[in-house]
């Protein structure tokens, strides 16, 4: 589904991603961990098409096609979704209005009928159950005045409505209280199936207790420094990242390191 090959990207001439290699197949869940500033959000934003980042080398194939050639909205309509580490507030536009627009844009892209406000209301009611989101949030402006945790939950509501093929969730767990974490993680599990894939960016093992990844990648200084199965996350929890920094290529699994 997604193939990232030797991806180099940066901002204003500063290289942040220094050769990422990553392959994600249908049905998989990948976790990306790594120290602050290692480039996790940068990778997510480059995949989503943020205009501030320039790709200087490498390629990204999505369903066999050049992802980097697509505009952000085209990527979204073809099934890529990024949950923001810091979701943006959109004052004056209600959650329901916004979600219906986004949903219908995708339907149009797929050549399907658009839903009118009433039809969409029913669908939204169903999808809101996935993250146990109260109806009162639908009439409020998108993320406007939402608490940190509410914003994160709202991101997953959007995911539930848009049903992406590839979801990149950037620290969706941070800011969630214990109950909310369980609910939101449960929602992601409900949405995950054999035909889609999830990339979880996280700092904490506790998320991975709920959403169990097949693969864990550790990003350090713009490269994948270590890769493994779900046990790697537990190891990191105990040891921290220092041992990786000292010997970045120690395990030989760091495919991104040239």
């Amino acid at each position, binding site marked *: 589904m997604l193939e990232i090959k030797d991806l180099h990207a940066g901002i204003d001439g500063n290289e942040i991603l220094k050769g990422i290699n990553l392959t994600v197949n249908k049905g998989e869940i990948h976790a990306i961990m790594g120290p602050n500033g290692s480039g996790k959000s940068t990778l997510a934003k480059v995949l*989503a*098409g*943020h*205009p501030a980042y320039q790709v200087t080398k490498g390629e990204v194939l999505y369903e066999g096609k050049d992802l980097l050639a697509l*505009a*952000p*909205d085209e*990527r*979204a*309509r073809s099934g890529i*979704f*990024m949950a*923001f580490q810091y*979701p*943006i*507030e*959109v*004052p*004056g*536009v209600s959650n329901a*209005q*916004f979600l219906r*627009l*986004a949903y219908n*844009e*995708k339907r149009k*892209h797929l050549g399907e009928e658009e839903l*009118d*406000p009433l039809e969409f209301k029913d669908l939204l009611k169903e999808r809101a159950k996935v993250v146990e989101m109260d109806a009162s949030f639908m009439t409020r*402006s998108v993320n406007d005045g939402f608490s940190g945790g509410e914003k994160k939950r709202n991101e997953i509501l*959007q995911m539930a409505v*848009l049903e992406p093929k590839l979801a990149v969730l950037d620290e969706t767990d941070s800011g969630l209280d214990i109950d909310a974490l369980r609910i939101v993680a449960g929602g992601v599990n409900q949405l995950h199936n054999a035909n889609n894939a999830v990339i979880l960016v996280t700092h904490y093992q506790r998320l991975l207790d709920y959403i169990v990844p097949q693969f864990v990648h550790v990003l350090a200084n713009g490269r994948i420094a270590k890769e493994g199965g779900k046990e790697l996350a537990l190891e990191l929890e105990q040891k921290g990242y220092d041992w990786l920094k000292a010997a970045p290529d120690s395990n030989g699994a760091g495919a991104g390191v040239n």
Partner: protein
Amino acid sequence: MVIELQKENLYQEAFQALQKSRGVESSWLDRLRENAMERFAELGFPSVKEEEWKYTNVAAIARTNFQPASPSAGATQLDAELKQLGSVPEARSSQLVFVDGILRNDLSSLGALSQQVVAIDLDQALADERYSEIVRAHLARQADYVVNGFTALNTAFINRGAFVYIPKGVLVAAPIHLMFIAQSENTANFPRVLIVAEENSSATIVENYVSVEEARYLTSPVVEVVLAEGARLEHYKVQRESVEAFHVATTAVGLGRNSSYDTTTITFGAKLSRHDIVVNMDHEGAECWVDGLYLVTGDQHADTHSVIDHRQPNCTSHQLYKGILDGKSRAVFNGKVFVRHNAQKTDAMQTNKNLLLSNEARVDTKPQLEILADDVKCAHGAAVGQIDEEELFYLETRGLHPDLGRNLLTYGFAEEVIAKIKLDSIRNELDEAVLHRLNAKLEV
């Protein structure tokens, strides 16, 4: 001003004709009109040399041979078109219709208003001993014709205006719709409205300016509002004049003790518009919301000059004006908040935010606070910006085309003002009008 003299003579002629047509009996109103005309002869139309008119050049108004509309003109054949124009369903039977600035009783319908509520022609009010003294006590007391040439001209041409009177304790459910229809090309229209709300009364007024065609004309209304103790008024003004027209308006409001005045002005139309809104907080405990939205494009020019005058203690004012400018349009916001020396415990908040959709649009914003009291809470701010790129990116990542994203953000920007409008039909219509102006099909 010398070049303009000739044109001002045109107004002089029309004025003489009007005075004659009213017969010989001299009343205080005749004198008021005469004084105002004399004042206009001295003032003329304002020039850009005057600080208050620095950014708004009305030379085109002075240059044009606008003919002050006479009461008899265009008396028929408006009904069908009328129904299309800015109707407010909630006010189908509580509306006063003006054509070219003249109140038309034949087109007005007041069935939904209780017997106690008065909504009549000014002339009629003056002829009625129950109201003549009330009119006399308030007319031309809020709107100062000594400083503003347009107000002077309007005052000189007071004729078939409207008098709206809400007696003590009366709560008016139906909104009272004042519909101003510009029908004739090249006319100068001077609608005059006096609204008096007595103690503890409550009402909603909608002031709506529309045109039959994209014609060139001048509408220069003066609306005076007087709220007695504890009175509450919601006041909406929607200005959708022809984009060839000129609209130069004054709204002047006097607030009684513990009264509440909530107004929103929406500006879409006119080639050049200027709105002076003055709220005098003359008594303790009054509260006002003075909000607005101007949405202009092409070569439109929209100027708002607002004065909120805290003259007494314990008054609260809130002001939010937003502007959306596209094309080569230009907007001016000048907002003065005065806090007089004895106006302790004043709470005044003023914000002006502008969104520029094109590189050629321009806004001059000047919020001004002048505080002479020491125990007050005041804040003001102004901003001019463009669509936020991070917000736009967020929408794009949800599959919205950048054009749609920009429209949605612009719509959201306007919503802060529109959403607070309590009258459903007006709010929904404005939503649609905003989307229409943005060429967007968002179906809200």
